[in-house]
């Protein structure tokens, strides 16, 4: 069991409230995954200011200060935001150059997110404590995804936590377990891909990233995932301009979608959605099995 909550805002006047709303949603899925948690936020000015690139990092042995000092020798304007178990780095350079600089100074660190608008923060611990550690409540932006994990397929580590962000401004969260992830991981490794964890969901994220890189849109990429992956899954996948949900054919992992002219929200359980403004007039439905639901910004 894991918990998923995501919010895609259409109404710009709600952007300043993204973190507050997402925190409320996350608190309601705590019981579904109390061992670790993570969030992905699109468009927060603290983490990913407009016109800059952002890299999210699990820093390994080095501390924020050490990484910041070393990084500024290469990129004098780089800013390191300490968000607990995750560091978020931003600088006015292209994402590739920032990733290279971060990797060069953070030897044992793992890059867990990169792009122009996306910050990924994750860690091990109680989801509500992590939300406080991330200062999620004050986050802003147009889109956010939260996940609480109850581990079944791999160890409870920060890098094994969701969201998995393995392509530019992409993120994926998963409730379920893929049955054939080892086979697909082997194929992707043979094709030259490297993995950060033994988590089955990371295989799904890398598969989707490969389809997007090949030029397919998110909807088609998720249809291809349904064809290739066995097992149980409810997935919420986001890019900087899309927000998509898909469930496996058996559809035993729960999902509820609510939609209003102001926002689209998806969660494992309705109680995560109950506090959203205007929920009383939302169109509420459960996604059908193997049907991809996608919304564009």
């Amino acid at each position, binding site marked *: 069991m894991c918990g998923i909550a995501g919010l895609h805002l259409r109404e710009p006047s709600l952007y300043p409230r993204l973190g507050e709303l997402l925190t409320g949603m996350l608190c309601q899925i705590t019981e579904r995954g109390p061992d670790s948690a993570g969030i992905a936020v699109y468009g927060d000015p603290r983490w990913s200011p407009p016109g800059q690139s952002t890299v999210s990092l699990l820093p390994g042995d080095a501390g924020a200060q050490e990484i910041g000092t070393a990084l500024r020798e290469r990129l004098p304007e780089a800013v390191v935001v300490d968000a607990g178990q995750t560091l978020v780095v931003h600088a006015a350079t292209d994402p590739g150059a920032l990733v290279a600089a971060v990797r060069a100074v953070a030897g044992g660190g793992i890059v867990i997110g990169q792009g122009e608008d996306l910050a990924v923060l994750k860690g091990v611990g109680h989801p509500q404590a992590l939300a406080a550690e991330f200062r999620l409540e004050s986050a802003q932006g147009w889109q956010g995804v939260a996940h609480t994990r109850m581990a079944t397929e791999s160890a409870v580590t920060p890098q094994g936590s969701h969201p998995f962000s393995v392509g530019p401004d992409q993120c994926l969260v998963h409730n379920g377990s893929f049955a054939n992830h080892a086979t697909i991981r082997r194929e992707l490794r043979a094709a030259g891909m490297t993995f950060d964890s033994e988590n089955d969901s990371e295989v799904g994220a890398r598969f989707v990233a490969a389809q997007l890189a090949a030029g397919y849109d998110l909807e088609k990429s998720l249809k291809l995932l349904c064809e290739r992956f066995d097992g149980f899954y409810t997935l919420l996948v986001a890019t900087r301009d899309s927000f998509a949900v898909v469930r496996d054919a058996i559809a035993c992992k729960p999902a509820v979608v609510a939609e209003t002219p102001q926002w689209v929200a998806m969660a494992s359980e*309705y109680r995560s959605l109950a506090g959203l403004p205007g929920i009383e007039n939302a169109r509420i439905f459960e996604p059908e099995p193997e049907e991809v639901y996608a919304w564009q910004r």
Partner: protein
Amino acid sequence: MAALSTPLEFADGRVELAEPTLVDLAGSDVRALNSALHAVDVAEKAPTWRVVNPDGRHNIAVGLDADVDVVVDGHVGYYCAGMNKAATVTVNGNAGVGAAENMMSGTVRIRGNASQSAGATAHGGLLVVEGSAAARCGISMKGVDIVVGGDVGHMSAFMGQAGRLVVCGDAGDALGDSLYEARLYVAGSVKSLGADCVEKEVRAEHLAELAGLLTAAGIDADPSSFRRYGSARRLYNFHVDNASAY
């Protein structure tokens, strides 16, 4: 939570029921509500209840075993009215997974939609879903009557053993898979039938049974518009020729 209300007893023996006991779940927890509903004298002292602000909480009004009437205003979470016995529970909203699961008797009415496994393993009583029910509606049903105003999802009535499932809309894939003896009625299309489930003739007694169920559910539909499905009884006992059907 408001205190249990007491009926007003007049000198001439007339008894007037007081206002429903109001429980606001925004300021109280589900355990306290259920505990009050389990009081041994609840049917005499507080026969009617109104629960507001459920906000998708789980286990609302589970394990009731007295003739009480509970109305919940809003959407509920998992297992609402599970194990119900004798009570009438109405949800003015949607229900999460397993509404009225393992119900023994009484009536549960969901005015919106119900998530998967509504009425799972239920032995008796009546479950009405006025909207649609998701996958596995009536899974392993053991005597309950279920009437769904809209559609049901895949694998509904899977391994059903007894009872009746009435679907006024469409049924998803594998309806009645591995069915024992439950009787299934569907007015709309059936995407596919599960293993050992077949269409059967609708006779006069079935029309009468359907009319009774629709009336009990308060749903206006023409019994003659339904088709009946049931078990072909080929999988009751293992036979090697049927191995591929298991």
